[in-house]
């Protein structure tokens, strides 16, 4: 479905992408993982053919370099934060439907599909961030393209909107769409991806399955524990004695855990007869700032 060979993009003397080669099969959901500046967004822009590049790149059998417009017709694109014109929701869908040569009735259909029908007469500026992302998804689906390209699509959404959006993309992937998305959120990659391409400083560092990512990159996650106030000091002492890095935060305690050792702190506290009121798993990039104790 997508093949990239020696994909290279330079901005002056700086190489944003350097000899990146990969293949994505139809029906896959591939995550581009990397820190800011790794080359994720540049790769997606090359896929869309909106900037020049060296090397070979094809989408759905179309040479992006030579036929970028045809390649874009095979792609539904959802940016991190879509900038729409100042129109109503239904007018926006109709405008992009005309550009995508979608049948006029598709505008109403896709708004229904992303549950925006009841907001169709609102101005886009009145929508929440989550609704705007759903509108971007609706626009992406107008011409029923085989490929969806998403650039950190949940970065600006709240937790519930993130979950809903990921579920929608999962459904589309299960229905046969090939999905390529960039992310630096481990939970998103695990929930949505079937394969991960790890980029670093413009180079393809490794390919792996989503559940291997944390261990391959030595990534840590944090377990947030709610402990009764009277047991808080004791729990910090127990966790410290068992070698965990902790960080008290208001009514809860954050404990750093490995991808394959998430239950270990809970066992340590259970053995010390310390009650746990609740817990949740948090990605490193969602952590509040504070002093940690090893």
């Amino acid at each position, binding site marked *: 479905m997508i093949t990239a060979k020696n994909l290279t993009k330079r901005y002056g003397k700086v190489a944003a992408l350097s000899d990146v080669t990969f293949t994505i099969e139809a029906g896959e959901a591939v995550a581009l993982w990397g820190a800011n500046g790794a080359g994720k967004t540049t790769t997606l822009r090359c896929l869309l053919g*909106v900037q020049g590049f060296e090397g070979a790149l094809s989408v759905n059998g179309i040479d992006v370099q030579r036929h970028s417009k045809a390649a874009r017709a095979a792609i539904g694109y959802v940016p991190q934060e879509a900038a729409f014109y100042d129109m109503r929701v239904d007018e926006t869908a109709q405008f992009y439907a005309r550009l995508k040569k979608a049948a006029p009735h598709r505008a109403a259909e896709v708004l229904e599909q992303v549950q925006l029908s009841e907001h169709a007469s609102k101005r886009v500026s009145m929508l929440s961030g989550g609704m705007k992302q759903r509108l971007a998804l609706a626009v992406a689906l107008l011409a029923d393209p085989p490929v969806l390209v998403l650039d950190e699509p949940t970065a600006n959404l709240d937790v519930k909107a993130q979950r809903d959006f990921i579920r929608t993309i999962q459904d589309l992937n299960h229905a046969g769409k090939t999905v390529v998305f960039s992310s630096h959120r481990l939970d998103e990659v695990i929930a949505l991806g079937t394969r991960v391409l790890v980029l670093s400083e413009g180079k393809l560092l490794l390919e792996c399955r989503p559940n291997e990512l944390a261990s391959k990159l030595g990534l840590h996650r944090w377990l947030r524990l709610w402990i009764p106030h009277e047991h808080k000091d004791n729990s910090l002492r127990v966790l410290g004695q068992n070698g965990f890095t902790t960080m008290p935060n208001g009514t809860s305690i954050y404990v750093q855990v490995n991808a394959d050792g998430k239950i270990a702190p809970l066992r340590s506290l259970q053995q010390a007869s310390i009650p746990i009121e609740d817990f949740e798993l948090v990605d490193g990039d969602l952590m509040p700032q504070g002093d940690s104790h090893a």
Partner: protein
Amino acid sequence: MLEFANIRAIARKELRDALHNRWFLVFTIAFAGLALTLSTLTQPGGSTFRAMSYSRTAASLINLVLLFVPLIGLTLGAANIAGDRETGALAYLLAQPVNRAEILLGKYAGMAGALLATLTLGFGAAGVVLALQRSVQDAGGYLLTVGLAYLLALSMLSLGFLMSILARKTATALGGALFLWLLLVFIGDLGIMGTTVSMRLPIETVFLVSVLNPLQMFKIASILSVQANLEVLGPAGLYATSQFGGLLLPLLIAGLVAWVAVPLAFAVRMFGRQERFVVKASAR
């Protein structure tokens, strides 16, 4: 290959946006109001309002066009692409199955439609008032002036779009547009006059330098269209009439068409090569 359907879709959106643009509406009302006022001015010594002839109204409107049309054409064009680039709307539009020439031509066509509609409203209102009160014997010259005003508006829009593509920010594009407006409207005239006096330039040079300015082209062509000679322009006008004769008006019209086409062609070419709209240093 260009798809007309894409150009039309974008043009429709731009036209719709222009109709919702407050400044554009203010300009339309102001232009129509001034045109109407000029067409219904009372004659000296008269106790009642009497309409002037088409030629006199056209001559009065030339100065209005020379001041207003370049300003609105340049600023509307300059704000267009640069504004979309700044909000991110351009990057999103470019990610759709349209090519850059279609986007630029669609935007240009939409803005041109809005601008020409404004001029039609202003000239049309004045024309209707005159038609209701006087004969329509000299309506031909009036219509030619309207056509020349269209060409001037389109040429200013082309220059505005070129500026919008060259500038990194909307503010820069608008600043450049205002500077160019001042240059064309005021400095062009005064500069040529000053240079002529200080350097004692031959009359043919003065004429050729002045017609490099599209506003001067419009002015000379409009005067020709309403009074058939250029005596009002002094020696330069007499030189032009004797040198080019009946070819002068077609040459000036061709010159204005070139001022429409050349900057627009440059804009399309530069926009096609540009990657500035997608490249943000923080988002690589």
